[in-house]
């Protein structure tokens, strides 16, 4: 029997791209589809996906869950679970369009949810932790159900296929967001199901990633101590959990988190000014097992911004660019030029140096 993603490690090469309009103006998903299609040869048709921020302005105060169901039983069980823990503000099947090369799609549903106040209070958890644990329980405990997006005013859309096909499948031209990221996957095995595609998301965090990290099991076995369960066995999943742990639970800044996972070499740190040296040394002493080695370039999406980060040796290509309020990140410059030929500035960020683009206000 064909193994599903999560039952094995599936190393992937990939294309990533991202855009943000820092003035907060909405862009349709169409641009992203165009951008990623330039990098067609970096994907192999076994996974594509998008994350859009600011796409649900009418429901911005509710958690938007996107779910894959293998069948009706999974949906029934999941909806029963959701009802026990949340108020369902709105639920519907996600509108898709038939694309001949996109096949084997599961049932795809969307729910806008608010935690039940009494349940939340009884849990003694803060709201985000409560929601994150519910997501984890559905994914681990309910067979055939998978939450692949769970943030507020954002959504992930993904599946097996080339990213441009997946974009059209989800009718992304009908959504408008201030930021988008996109991923085209080149896995070395077939993922077997749609949950294996990227971006990977947790609450409003999303990660698209290119590369295969060599520290995977060291990172996984460490982060699983803190209640995370790496069910997909992908690099993207473990990177998302690490960032969630460092940012949300440890309260680090984005730059500090970047200096933890893509820490400068000790020899480089030794040459920095004393204050920086002290802080970066401290981060490496505090979280040594969260250092990520091996090639990676990631675009990390969160409410209000995007962060681009390369591994410390810069083993993957990544380009950033700006044009007015818009900022772009992509594996290749051509993917940016395709949607904005006249850029103000283009540059390749150094390995381990985060580039952060945030909304102006």
């Amino acid at each position, binding site marked *: 029997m064909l193994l599903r993603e999560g039952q094995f490690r599936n190393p992937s090469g990939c294309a990533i791209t991202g855009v943000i309009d820092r003035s907060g103006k909405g862009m349709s998903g169409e641009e992203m589809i165009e951008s990623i299609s330039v990098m067609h040869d970096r994907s192999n048709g076994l996974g594509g996906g998008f994350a859009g921020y600011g796409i649900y302005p009418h429901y911005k105060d509710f958690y938007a869950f996107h779910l894959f169901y293998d069948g009706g039983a999974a949906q029934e069980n999941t909806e029963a679970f959701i009802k026990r823990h949340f108020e369902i503000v709105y639920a519907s099947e996600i509108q898709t369009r038939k694309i001949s090369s996109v096949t084997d799609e599961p049932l795809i549903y969307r729910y806008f949810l608010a935690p039940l106040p009494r349940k939340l209070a009884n849990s003694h958890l803060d709201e985000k932790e409560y929601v994150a644990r519910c997501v984890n329980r559905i994914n681990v405990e309910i067979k055939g159900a998978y939450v692949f997006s769970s943030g507020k005013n954002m959504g992930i859309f993904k599946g097996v296929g080339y990213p441009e096909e997946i974009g059209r499948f989800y009718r992304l031209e009908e959504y408008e967001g201030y930021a988008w990221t996109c991923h085209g996957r080149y896995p070395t095995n077939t993922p077997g199901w749609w949950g294996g595609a990227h971006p990977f998301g947790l609450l409003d965090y999303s990660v698209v990633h290119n590369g295969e990290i*060599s*520290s995977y099991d060291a990172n996984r076995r460490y982060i699983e101590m803190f209640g995370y369960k790496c069910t997909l066995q992908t690099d993207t999943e473990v990177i998302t959990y690490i960032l969630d742990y460092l940012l949300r639970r440890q309260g680090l800044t984005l730059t500090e988190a970047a200096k933890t996972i893509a820490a400068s070499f000790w020899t480089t740190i030794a040459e920095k000014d004393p204050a920086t040296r002290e802080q970066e040394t401290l981060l490496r002493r505090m979280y*040594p097992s969260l250092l990520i080695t*091996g090639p990676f370039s990631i675009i990390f999406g969160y409410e209000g911004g995007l962060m681009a980060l390369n591994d410390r*040796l810069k083993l993957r290509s990544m380009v950033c660019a700006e044009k007015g309020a818009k900022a772009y990140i992509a594996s290749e410059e051509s993917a940016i030029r395709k949607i904005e030929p006249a850029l103000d500035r283009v540059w390749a960020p150094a390995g381990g140096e985060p580039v952060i683009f945030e909304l102006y206000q």
Partner: protein
Amino acid sequence: MEMYIPSEYEVIRDDKKCNVCRVCERQCANAVHSYDAKLGKMLADSAKCVNCHRCVCLCPTHALKIVKSDDIYKADANWTAQTINEVYKQANSGGVLLSSMGNPQPLPVFWDKILVNASQVTNPPIDPLREPMETQLYLGKRRTKAERDVNGRLKDTLAPQLRLNMPILFSAMSYGSISYNAHESLARAAEELGIYYNTGEGGLHKDFYKYGKNTIVQVASGRFGVFKEYLESAAAIEIKMGQGAKPGIGGHLPGAKITEDVSLTRMIPRGVDAISPAPHHDIYSIEDLRQLVYSLKEATEYKKPILVKIAAVHNVAAIASGIARSGADIIAIDGCRGGTGAAPTRIRDNVGIPIELALAEVDQRLREEGIRDEVSLIAGGSVRSSSDVVKAIALGADACYIGTAALLALGCHLCRSCHQGNCNWGIATQKPELVKRLDPDVGAQRLVNLLTAWNHEIQEMMGGMGINSIEALRGNRLMLRGVGLTDTELKILGIKYAGESL
């Protein structure tokens, strides 16, 4: 009746090569070699030979070799010559069999059944000669919650840690069990390499206080040489609960080895036995360990990490979990193949479990309980090479203790006769004429050579895996595969079988 026990070895001299220089005679503290003036020839009494190879190595004409004696008892797979001889020895003496160094029995060596990964295509190997390859690390507690000062900068709330240039430390060997020159060699090498050596339970010689920042001092059940300055001189303090070569029993350094200088260091009178009780009599339960950990922290004002060293025994994971909750900063686990200056044979050969299994169990248990961050783990008890180190770290160790390998670098030939105090290599002896054979300049350099080479090999293997920091190798079990292992062994080691993909 005293039963004659034939020697296991025979000293063979090639008379054509021997020029009767009598070096062998002068070098052998066991008086194997003698000169027969009438014959004008050298003679050898093989019965006294411990097979330490000193004479073989120093014979200028290479006229000597030691071979296994072909004198045999009737072949018997059950009653081997060794077993029979042990019965004779005990019937002769009524004594407990005493031996030294690590378990020589053919127990499985799991290191040799574990293979390491390398990158091909999907991620790149890294060239350690040209790109940075970090083997530096810190040992100690890491569990912390990020806190900030008024300026928003992260505060250093970590407990004290030890910085190492490579994931290797010299394990505890006391002054008394090994010589002054051996200790000096270890101390100087540790300083030069940016790592640590360990005093063992014999106190710290006043000459070696200057190596304090590279010294771990031990507090064992006998508390020899333990006093305020000793504790304060060190970089860290190790509470010795047990030792892989002799789990569950104490130590006994015979009075003959308590020379003036050893007595000074141990702070006990000369010529009196130094006995370490099996338990610390102030620790009969885990909360008492916490009491000793904290009494040491109080006495040193919380400035030094506290290690707790235990032997790998059946329930090691639960014990380690208890230690991780006791306030200790580092747990050192010593496997059943670890060395010793003297241990009852039956204990050495039959008690405890291999380090590979113990380490894998402990690391996994601490992670399952979410407390792996409370402590660092040091694995020891037969770490023989850089590849053993790499495998130990991928299984979950932070660093490795080496003892026997370090002694080999100093000249030890594993004759396993340390308890007799006649070490011809000047290592496990207190006889001045033997001790002076080990030149600390040479000894330190050989240790530096060994570990510099190992460090380079570790970097090569890390580079092959595409890992450029030792920290990203720690617990990275996907980098390991087993061969010739049972399902149970694979399960305990937490690794897949070779050929199983990711």
